[in-house]
């Protein structure tokens, strides 16, 4: 009998909801807070659950620190004291969830968005932000396609795959003198993207790609592909992928009796890589966009304060999130408005001294210059070797 009553009840309620819905479209919600204070909502999105939860949380911390710093400074925009608010949402690194999250942030009338962590989530979410005119600064999405979609609202503060792959390829062939190079990737958007750019750049610098092999982001056995590579006798092996595959790969490489140099992108630059690969990690190269934190005056300060506040070392991208927020705030100050429509046109022209690099955008919204630092494992520690490309501080 329930089935009879439910629709009836719904029907009875419908006029009320309809009224509510119409009412909502007619009047725009007034800004909360008293007249003297301007509340600016900054949306942030990253995977806070799932396999990348620790990196996502790191992003949130970086964003939060920037917002707390800005509040402490007591900025004023259009004569009003500004209070920044953080709205952090979990996108589960799932493209579908990312669009839902983007919609929620738009609903909440955020003034700008810092996110998302992955390229796979940043790309579909960008369409929703663009439709609603909300500026989006991606701290760590590196796929070229993210800014290539042509949305005026999409920016990023990290060197993209093309910029990073280019530097890595030049370093491998010019600085390390590798003539024959084998390239592996894990068939993810990140791994394939950076590996393809590496190949282009290494070939342009005169190196020869003797093998192009593949694995997956869930594999642990690389013996077959590494053996095949061994037959081609390369001077250097480049792997586009993350540390869970990188560390067993370098181990198996050494177990096959190969002394070949091993190189990865920023996916390898983690303390976990060294933990898991043990002695085999020694001598491995990996890159990280930007300038080493301890080379930037504000960077060293950032690292100390981050560790004091969140009781953990910086995982990966927190400094980029910190910079992203500050760039956004700089644009708001320049426009003297937190309205997306007012400050968006100025965002592209902002030049900001961040903790990772000097930040300025090109016409597409990509980072101009894009410095990349190379690190090497020495005595079981990542040590900076050289910063290439981009404007040095």
């Amino acid at each position, binding site marked *: 009998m329930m089935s009879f009553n439910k629709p009836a009840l719904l029907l009875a309620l419908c006029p009320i909801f309809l009224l509510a819905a119409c009412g909502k479209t007619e009047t725009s919600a007034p800004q909360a807070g008293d007249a003297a204070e301007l509340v600016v909502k900054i949306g942030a999105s990253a995977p806070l659950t799932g396999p990348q939860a620790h990196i996502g949380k790191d992003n949130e911390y970086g964003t939060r620190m920037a917002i707390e710093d800005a509040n402490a400074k007591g900025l004023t925009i259009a004569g009003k004291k500004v209070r920044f608010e953080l709205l952090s949402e979990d996108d589960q690194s799932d493209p579908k969830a990312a669009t839902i999250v983007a919609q929620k942030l738009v609903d909440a009338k955020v003034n700008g968005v810092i996110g998302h962590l992955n390229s796979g989530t940043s790309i579909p979410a960008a369409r929703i932000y663009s439709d609603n005119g909300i500026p989006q600064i991606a701290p760590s999405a590196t796929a070229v396609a993210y800014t290539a979609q042509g949305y005026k609202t999409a920016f990023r503060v990290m060197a993209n795959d093309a910029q990073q792959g280019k530097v890595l390829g030049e370093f491998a062939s010019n600085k390390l003198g590798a003539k024959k190079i084998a390239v592996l990737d894990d068939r993810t958007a990140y791994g394939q993207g950076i590996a393809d750019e590496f190949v282009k750049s290494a070939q342009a610098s005169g190196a020869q790609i003797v093998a192009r092999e593949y*694995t997956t982001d869930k594999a*642990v*056995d690389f*013996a*077959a592909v590494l053996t*095949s590579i061994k037959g081609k006798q390369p001077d250097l092996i480049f792997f586009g992928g993350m540390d869970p595959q990188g560390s067993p790969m370098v181990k198996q490489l050494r177990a096959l009796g190969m002394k070949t140099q091993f190189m990865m992108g920023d996916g390898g630059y983690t303390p976990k890589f060294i933990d*898991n690969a043990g002695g085999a990690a020694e001598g491995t190269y990996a890159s990280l966009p930007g300038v080493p934190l301890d080379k930037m005056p504000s960077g060293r300060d950032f690292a100390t304060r981050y560790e004091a506040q969140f009781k953990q070392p910086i995982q990966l991208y927190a400094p980029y999130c910190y910079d992203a927020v500050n760039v956004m705030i700089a644009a708001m100050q320049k426009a003297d408005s937190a309205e997306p429509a007012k400050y968006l046109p100025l965002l592209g022209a902002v030049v900001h001294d961040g903790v990772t690099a000097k930040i300025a955008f090109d016409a597409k919204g990509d980072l101009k210059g894009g410095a990349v630092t190379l690190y090497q494992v020495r005595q079981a520690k990542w040590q900076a070797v050289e910063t290439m490309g981009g404007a040095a501080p």
Partner: protein
Amino acid sequence: MDIFLQQLINGLVQGSVYALVALGYTMVYGILGLINFAHGEVVMVGAMVALTALQALLAAAFAPVLAVLFSLMLAVAACMALGYGIERIAYRPLRNAPRLAPLITAIGVSIVLQNLAMMIWGREYHAFPLPFNNGLHEMGGAIITDVQIVIVLVALVMMAGLMGVVHRTRMGRAMRAVAENPSAAALMGVDINRVISATFMLGSALAAVAGLMVSANYGIVHYYMGFMLGLKAFTAAVLGGIGNLRGAMLGGVLLGLIESLGAGYIGDLSGGFLGSHYQDVFAFFVLIAVLVLRPSGLLGERVAERA
């Protein structure tokens, strides 16, 4: 030539692991006619338990040999209990149910075990400690490590032992009787429930051994490691003829060789059109081809078509 030899060794080592895991699938299928989808997760749990035990024992300054043996025993015991539990909870109540039901509970068990393991041991990849120095040996230009030699030897010993159990002991005879005709076996005084439990436990013990060997070889343990391994091992069991012990061993080694030679040579042979990114496609393609062309597998009887 040395590269080819190396690929053979890679395939043999990988295949030995597949074979050990495949035995677990094939034993259960032989007796119950059921695919134990959760078997791969048992391998993972074995590896995780061994990891925790080994870390604790090494920290307590046990002698390396003792530590490895003890953690192996612990892993085997834990997996046997797990295998018994899975059968009791997820399969026994459904023994007379439609065939789809236990398959879906098996998927359920697999998801539950994965997520429990993730909660207990975390999402990150763990380094598996090796208390010995893993020496390299050269054979005709190819390299083989101590651990890999141990894997192949242990796999051989375990298989021989299993054949002994199934063909020489009372329990083995009971197993074969149940596989042949459960009701007739019951009439002859065989305790079917006990036999089935024993089968699950035996298969799980092999899975624990496989788990330890895989983690020692790759030096890395992860909550997701069992799924793909289980799928490949099942493919191996089907390839050899599911329900047939010798078939599982043959299928395992064959699949290992197909994969390593495929990944190693297909790129060069097809002029770069197909490459190692299709490695998993080979495994599935072999599976589909075998099932379609010869549903009984290489050494199996015709069981696939029974209603």
